[in-house]
């Protein structure tokens, strides 16, 4: 970990103690995880504390972790199972069809997260903050619009695309999808082809919505390789032992 990151991590640990679930470094960036109850308190301190001074919220985005690590192609047992290594259709998000359902692979309360990217112009550094919504069926996260005004539209976007509710938001409307749109399109269980398609009906003389007629098509399956270049030393040893 570089010097300035280490310094920031220490400052965070000293300031917040057990209010942060974790502080981790990866790829030269610092990520802190916060409990949803303490978000507002932590966010206000991050902005107002002189040593931190994260004046600006650069980005806020929703993430749906429900299919994290799921693949469509088995790569481990190639020689034993021959060439039909494709995972059954319908069970993975790329091949999701109209009306199909997907099971979440993560434990309860770890599905929806909001990720905040902060920047401090005074100290010239960045921080990533992650908050998980505790209820998967009804994800609620308090709004940070009082702390950073720009969060207004970002939270509307995360609500629109992921269905994360930001409690206390002044005007939580859909923003990117069409007026009257149903569903939250960036959730992993929302098919890429969508649910409805629209056309002009010359008899009714208006635009009509119908269930989609196109088939989802995936040209390249989602593949995970046990690539030795990316394994840590322990993992590499494990792979060696298996072989």
């Amino acid at each position, binding site marked *: 970990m570089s010097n300035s990151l280490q310094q920031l991590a220490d400052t965070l640990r000293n300031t917040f103690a057990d209010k942060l679930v974790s502080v981790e470094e990866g790829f030269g960036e610092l990520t802190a995880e916060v409990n949803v109850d303490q978000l507002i308190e932590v966010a206000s301190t991050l902005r107002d504390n002189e040593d931190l001074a994260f004046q600006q919220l650069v*980005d806020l985005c929703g993430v749906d972790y429900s299919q994290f690590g799921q693949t469509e192609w088995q790569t481990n047992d190639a020689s034993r199972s021959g060439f039909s290594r494709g995972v059954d259709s319908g069970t993975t998000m790329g091949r999701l069809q109209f009306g199909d359902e997907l099971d979440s692979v993560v434990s309860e309360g770890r599905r929806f997260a909001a990720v905040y990217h902060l920047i401090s112009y005074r100290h010239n550094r960045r921080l990533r903050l992650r908050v998980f919504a505790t209820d998967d069926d009804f994800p609620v996260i308090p709004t940070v619009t009082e702390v950073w005004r720009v969060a207004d539209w970002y939270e509307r976007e995360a609500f629109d695309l992921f269905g994360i509710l930001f409690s206390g938001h002044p005007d939580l409307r859909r923003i990117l999808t069409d007026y009257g749109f149903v569903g939250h399109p*960036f959730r992993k269980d929302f098919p890429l082809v969508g649910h409805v398609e629209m056309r002009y009906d010359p008899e009714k003389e208006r635009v009509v919505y119908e269930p989609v007629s196109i088939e989802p098509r995936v040209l390249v399956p989602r593949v995970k390789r046990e690539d030795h270049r990316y394994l840590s030393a322990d993992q590499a040893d494990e792979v060696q032992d298996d072989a």
Partner: protein
Amino acid sequence: MPEIKNYTLNFGPQHPAAHGVLRLVLEMDGEVIERADPHVGLLHRGTEKLAETKPYSQSIAYMDRLDYVSMMCNEHGYVMAIEKLLGIEVPERAQYIRVMFDEITRIRNHLLWIGTHALDVGAMTMFLYAFREREDLMDIYEAVSGARVHAAYYRTGGVARDLPDTMPQYLENRWRSKKEADRLNKNRQGSLLDFAEDFTNRFPGYIDEYETLLTDNRIWKQRTVGIGVVSEERAYQLGFTGPMLRGSGVEWDLRKKQPYEVYDRMDFDIPVGTNGDCYDRYPVRIEEMRQSNRIIKQCIDWLRKNPGLVITDNHKVAAPRREEIKADMEGLIHHFKLFSEGYSLPEGEAYAAVEHPKGEFGIYLISDGANKPYRVKIRAPGFAHLSAMNEMAKGHMLADVVAIIGTQDIVFGEIDR
């Protein structure tokens, strides 16, 4: 006649001053704006979701279509995020080429901005002038990538190919006389770098022309001075970046403060405004064009002297050369794997930001170790800027809304994504 005081006005989505498909619902008191409610999303294509279902390299072309007037800067943000996760080195020459094209793109973007902004405010000639110069820059794009707009030139680990030694020529035909074709071809006799250098020599003179038309223009000043004032404190709160932030007096530029590629070797200055109004953001952008011109010159000098690789020779992420594919078994396998499955990124997440002409353009990439991203979030500068519309327009006249849209440099490709 009954007295009507408050009413709601619908502006757009099809309106030439809306810069695309912006629908603005304005609550007015007479001619004064009380509340502005922008309705966006009419150009929403779900780029981020599409990227989740494609191998990494196939989404580069989508990035062009975000902010479709600064194509290569979008690509740059995306490939930088991938490179950060992969941890690969980009050859020095490729870094210089990227910096040069980022700055060419910045000039292109600012030329479109000044043309349309001035046109909205009532200065027709600016538009014609700005598009005259954009033509040369599009030719540079075309010479290097084959496309005038959606270049798809950047690659993970470098750029698609080296700069060409010749420029395409105009031909004599029924509509273009020999004399006319020769005039157009006059500065296209050498390599792309010669053509670009010729442009950088001419360009400062063109900027002077723009400034003669606008800087002290009474109408231009009446329409922009004191309009849409944003203080430094509010600029942070409203998520302003790039020229919008600098217009409010913050000396901040990612190219200087968090340098990427070879910007730390470049000699250039950051222009800063004082009042944070529409007029202040105009000289900021004008000066940025001059500074970009300086950077391009420095890149040209370096690129002339230093031939070399333009894409990494790590064939796990970048395809081998055609001869290697034909003659070498390993090259063939690399080629096959790259174009059938793509490359996998290590599990993790990264945020890479570039100083885009409009502000900070960031890509937040979450990888679960697969050959496709798990989540891509595009941080578009225009999205934050447009969300400040209500605060900037409140209390101004209807006609000032047009000036504010112009100064924000709105492009819907990136806002709606």
